[in-house]
């Protein structure tokens, strides 16, 4: 089953490699991984999307907690949470496609953030499946480049992950 795991860790050199090394050494999956400092610059917040049986996920959280740089670990999928991912897509926009691309971007609540006479760069935010849906909806041959951040997640309401 797919799980989204949030980690608070010391913002120190090498902390990321400790986490990624743990996943590869123990044979756990990483679907996506995002990390950046928090409002407290000494801490980083990492979101990992992974999959596995309940036993595997339990081991993943335990092994993560064992890392000396890791301060807190929460499996967001255990409760209500919100998940977002950002995607930048460069698409060909010439002729009749130009209007069509604009319309599709609007439907998906995307924004065109760069324009040339041949292409658009569209910014789109949402769950992973919404981003997938957009890519399916537009003409595949028009896609020049896609960049995705991987999912970030946060608990709903008073579910707060902080030190």
């Amino acid at each position, binding site marked *: 089953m797919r799980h989204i795991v949030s980690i608070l860790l*010391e913002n120190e050199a090498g902390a990321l490699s400790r986490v990624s090394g743990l996943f590869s*050494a123990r044979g756990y999956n990483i679907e996506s991984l995002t990390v950046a400092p928090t409002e407290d610059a000494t801490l980083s917040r990492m979101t990992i999307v992974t999959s596995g049986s309940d036993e595997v996920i339990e*081991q993943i959280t335990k092994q993560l907690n064992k890392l*000396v*740089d890791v301060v807190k670990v929460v499996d967001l999928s255990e409760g209500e949470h919100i998940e977002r991912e950002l995607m930048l897509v460069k698409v060909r926009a010439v002729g009749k496609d130009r209007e069509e691309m604009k319309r599709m971007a609007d439907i998906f609540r995307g924004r065109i953030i760069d324009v040339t006479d041949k292409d658009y760069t569209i910014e789109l935010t949402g769950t992973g499946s919404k981003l997938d849906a957009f890519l399916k909806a537009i003409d595949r041959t028009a896609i020049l480049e896609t960049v995705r951040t991987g999912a970030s997640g946060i608990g709903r309401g008073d579910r707060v992950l902080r*030190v």
Partner: protein
Amino acid sequence: MQLTGAEIFVRCLQQEGVEYVFGYPGGAVLFLYDELFKQNQVKHVLVRHEQGAIHAADGYARSTEKVGVALVTSGPGVTNAVTGIATAHMDSIPLVVITGQVPTHAIGQDAFQESDTVGITRPCVKHNFLVKDVKDLASTMKKAFYIASTGRPGPVVVDIPKDVTTHKTEFDYPDKVTMRSYNPVTKGHAGQIKKAIQVLMGAKRPMVYSGGGVILGNAAPQLARLVRLLGLPCTNTLMGLGGYPATDRQFLGMLGMHGTYEANMAMQHCDVLLAIGARFDDRVIGNPKHFFEQERTIIHIDIDPSSISKRVKVDVPIVGNVAEVLEDLLKQLEASKARPDADALKTWWTQIELWRGRDCLKYDRTSPIIKPQYVVQKLYEITGGDAYVTSDVGQHQMWAAQFYKFDQPRRWINSGGLGTMGFGLPAAMGVQLAHPDSQVACITGEASIQMCIQELSTCKQYRLPIKVVNLNNKYMGMVRQWQEFFHGNRYAESYMDALPDFVKLAESYGHIGMHIEKPEDVEPALKEAFSRKNDLVFMDFITDQTENVFPMVPGGKSLSEMILV
């Protein structure tokens, strides 16, 4: 007063009460060595290969309750040390390993003797640090000792670039450290302990299985009290030997791949299993699928939550320091009259005695060729069961574990998790330095001993009177055994051709060498060797080439599917 990084480094070791540093100098650590040279409090032991330095520090740590310390230079110094560090990591041994690094400005330039030490050691340490600023050096050293020795212990690497050892700052060694990201639990959950007692009281066929955690957590006294109070059978893992007195009637011997028949059968057929500081590894329970063919309730006490429910599902997990948890458990048990069903326990013991009657460790005592088991048995008798015994890896290790009865913890020193050949001799050096007046034996084989034999030179320099018991069957015995059982007697590359004359070799290092070929010479040889209190004696016992270790649970099989003699 401003001190250099090198001065600070030595002050930190002094503050930690470090007695010995095992190491090997090189370019990146010259300033550190210069400061060590100027003082007498911390003694340095010069090994002949960095792997030996780590194993020696490891042996020192295992046989004491202290942190072992090693110092190596950058690049090849580090890569040579990795085997030792990984060995300590697998067996949870507290070490602080200081590694030299090229100057900070040269990092990443592919400088001479540069290696990414933090990267290379990351998967085989509990934690590691690169000290980029001399201001962080003292606090990092403090953290290193704290992390290595608390919680589930393990090795910590501190990588110090050469320029940091010359930079100056105020020295202030912190009294203690607090880390928001590292707070090991020590006290067991009261509710879980209560639940564990209920389960134990309802047991008809209870069993205690304890591992290295009991040794590392200094919980042997509590374990013995518990086992005796409830009249339970007890087995130890390879790492846990000495955790419960081996000569006690309630001890069933070691369990696992080469465990006793009675221990493995009791493990497989018990209805309540109390696991203490052990991790259900593949050499202990075999295939988890077969392990669960019999139903049982499992209580598991361990300081590391990730050890619980990793390979087998546990019913009553208790996270905490094993000594503290057992103390809490005992307090409640001693205050109450509740005991497990005495009749059921009696029936269970009758069954166990039947299994024990199988005499699974028997071997041919009339053989005209020396049987390796006989050598270990005689070693046990002649040392009065009171020696520190280190071993290498293979058949001799298993015979040592089966035939030397350890009544005390920290006497049996071996590489259980990683299975590192070459461990025995350097580990014995650390043990002998920690216990200068004790008998120290290194049980080894002609293959293993050659992996770190250069340390015979270190033994001479520091006059370490280790007794090397070389069980020489001219084969990598355990490899040969597997080839005999599972590879159609095709002994691919397991024959040790062109062996040195070990007697001459020992003599050339300045030691005493003995060559023993007849069973009747075994006892006199051992007696003579141990009467030489100040000499290292290398005993080369020519043993039966075809002897195998029994019982044996073939890989992937159930504990009850043993190959017996």
